[in-house]
């Protein structure tokens, strides 16, 4: 990206500012870990009743949980500012994005990192590592984890951006719109094959979360024939990002012509 240094400088400065609030940082860390653990609690209940989900053992499902948690964490670390957009629109503050000589979407995303993301990142790391360790997975699998996480954060953020933009075009500036892609992410923590076909394929092709946890999981644990799809993850991430920016600019035009 041509103006990468601008975005990077913005990110660094904002991150540094956030680090000054130590108590908030600690609490946020605790909270996001707790949210992950709560989800794990339900998984525990499920596996108390059954030994596998469509052939996936508890340790294997935990790998999916871990990848998802880390992708969420990375998205919150780098791109969390998207969550403020509905409020900015309500308060008439989106204007400030438009006075700077930079692309509005990357500038927006990068300029307000959220530190509680570290809770998600750490919990996710512990889960993934625990899963790979107990299942004695080879080193290649470990190496690929960061790639999937990075792609995951891009794909998830793209979904947020698309929902957000659609919302300012059709519905109005409501924070709840962003909860939809967020909730769908929770669905993608389980092996997609347990769901009815439309959910399964919806989460692979429409909102392609399965691409950064389910497909890699399939590949790592040797589950299915086209598991090589895991290597398409970066490509999907790039496409998602491109689509997200187009949709964003299109939504922004609506804001610019209605002022709301």
């Amino acid at each position, binding site marked *: 990206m041509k103006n990468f*240094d*601008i975005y990077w*400088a*913005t990110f660094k*400065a*904002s991150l*540094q*500012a*956030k680090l*000054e609030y130590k108590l908030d940082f600690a609490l946020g860390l605790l909270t996001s870990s707790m949210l992950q653990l709560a989800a794990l609690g339900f998984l525990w209940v499920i596996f108390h009743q059954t030994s596998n989900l469509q052939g996936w053992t508890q340790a294997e499902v935990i790998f999916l949980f871990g990848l998802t948690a880390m992708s969420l964490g990375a998205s919150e670390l780098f791109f969390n500012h998207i969550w403020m957009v509905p409020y900015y629109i309500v308060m*008439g*503050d989106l*204007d*400030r994005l*438009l*006075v*700077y*000589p*930079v*692309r509005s979407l990357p500038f927006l995303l990068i*300029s*307000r990192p959220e530190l509680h993301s570290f809770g998600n990142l750490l919990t996710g790391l512990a889960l993934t590592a625990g899963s790979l360790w107990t299942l004695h997975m080879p080193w290649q699998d470990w190496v690929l984890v960061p790639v999937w996480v990075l792609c995951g954060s891009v794909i998830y953020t793209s979904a947020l951006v698309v929902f957000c933009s659609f919302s300012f075009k059709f519905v109005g500036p409501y924070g709840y719109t962003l909860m939809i892609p967020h909730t769908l992410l929770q669905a993608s923590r389980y092996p997609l094959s347990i769901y009815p076909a439309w959910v399964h394929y919806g989460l692979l092709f429409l909102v392609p979360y399965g691409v950064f946890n389910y497909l890699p999981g399939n590949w790592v644990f040797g589950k299915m024939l086209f598991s090589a799809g895991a290597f398409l993850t970066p490509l999907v991430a790039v496409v998602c990002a491109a689509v997200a920016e187009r949709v964003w600019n299109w939504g922004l*035009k609506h804001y*610019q*012509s*209605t*002022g*709301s």
Partner: protein
Amino acid sequence: MLTVPGGLPKMLPLYPMNSALQVQNLSKSYKRRIRQPGLAGAVKALFSTQEQELHAVRDLSFTLQRGERVGLIGENGAGKSTTLKMLTGILVPTGGKVEVLGRVPWRERRQLALNIGVVFGQRPQLLWDIPVQETFELLKTMYRIPPDIYGLVYKEAVRRLGLEPLLATPVRHLSLGQRMRCDLAAAVLHAPAIAFLDEPTIGLDLSVKEQVREFIAHIQEKFGITLLITTHDLKDITETCDRLLLLDKGRLLFDGSIKAFEQKYASDRRIVAETHRPLDSSVAGPLSVEVAKKGGKLIEAEGHRVVVEYHEEGAAPNLIQLLLQQLQVVDINLEKTDIETIVTRIYRQPDRAGD
């Protein structure tokens, strides 16, 4: 004036033109939902929406020359901010044409943004939880400001706006007034070709207002910045601008120099004289005839006071001479309605522009 140092010549080739900004038949209307009051209204709104069209700006046309200093005034809701937002590419108009530095703002927003500076006094722009100093550094990177320009403006801003003690403070810990000053500095840090300042002195106390005006005037002069200021404080305009645009209900009511504005609206110049002895009632009649001959009008002649009104600029010396000859004058004053009174008077007229 063509060598504007702050603008980035690489991004924006200088246009062989003098006008910085052209607006033709610009208009903007909004649709707003109507809500009925009360709980019943709230329930009703669940099922239906009624909309109403609001015309924020109608058929606006004007041109700004390079380096001009122009004030835009009008009541709340007259369309000042909307106009500014359209000129800066934030809003897209419903009709009309706009060219700023030869570009259509909402189509080439980013290229334009490099060459303009914007302040929205009601909503300071500084985005981050980071200290002021670092915000400036960030802007330096973002606008690719050459070090010499940056150093120069930065020094001026710190000195004239008294930013020194604020530099290490995160933006959100600043008071509105402090933020405003930082915002102003941030907006002109890259010595833009045009600066759009929307109420740059709002919420500041008098001495700081003065500082801000001085800073604006100084930076404007140094870089030949084209200036468009909106404000409710007319002193901002009399001290920093030459030309005035008066917006009313979205329409342009006046466009011209401040002097022309005064001549057009401040028709009532007055001479007030005080006499040594109380006036005799018989004086008034003949005096009024004499005064009328010299182009004035006798308003009052009672007690020790004589008031004469006139419109023609050149009439004053003759009238004064007349009064000095006819009466025993101990004191004489020329009164001119100040611009603030004029503007207030215009706002109060019930059927001015009309719908």
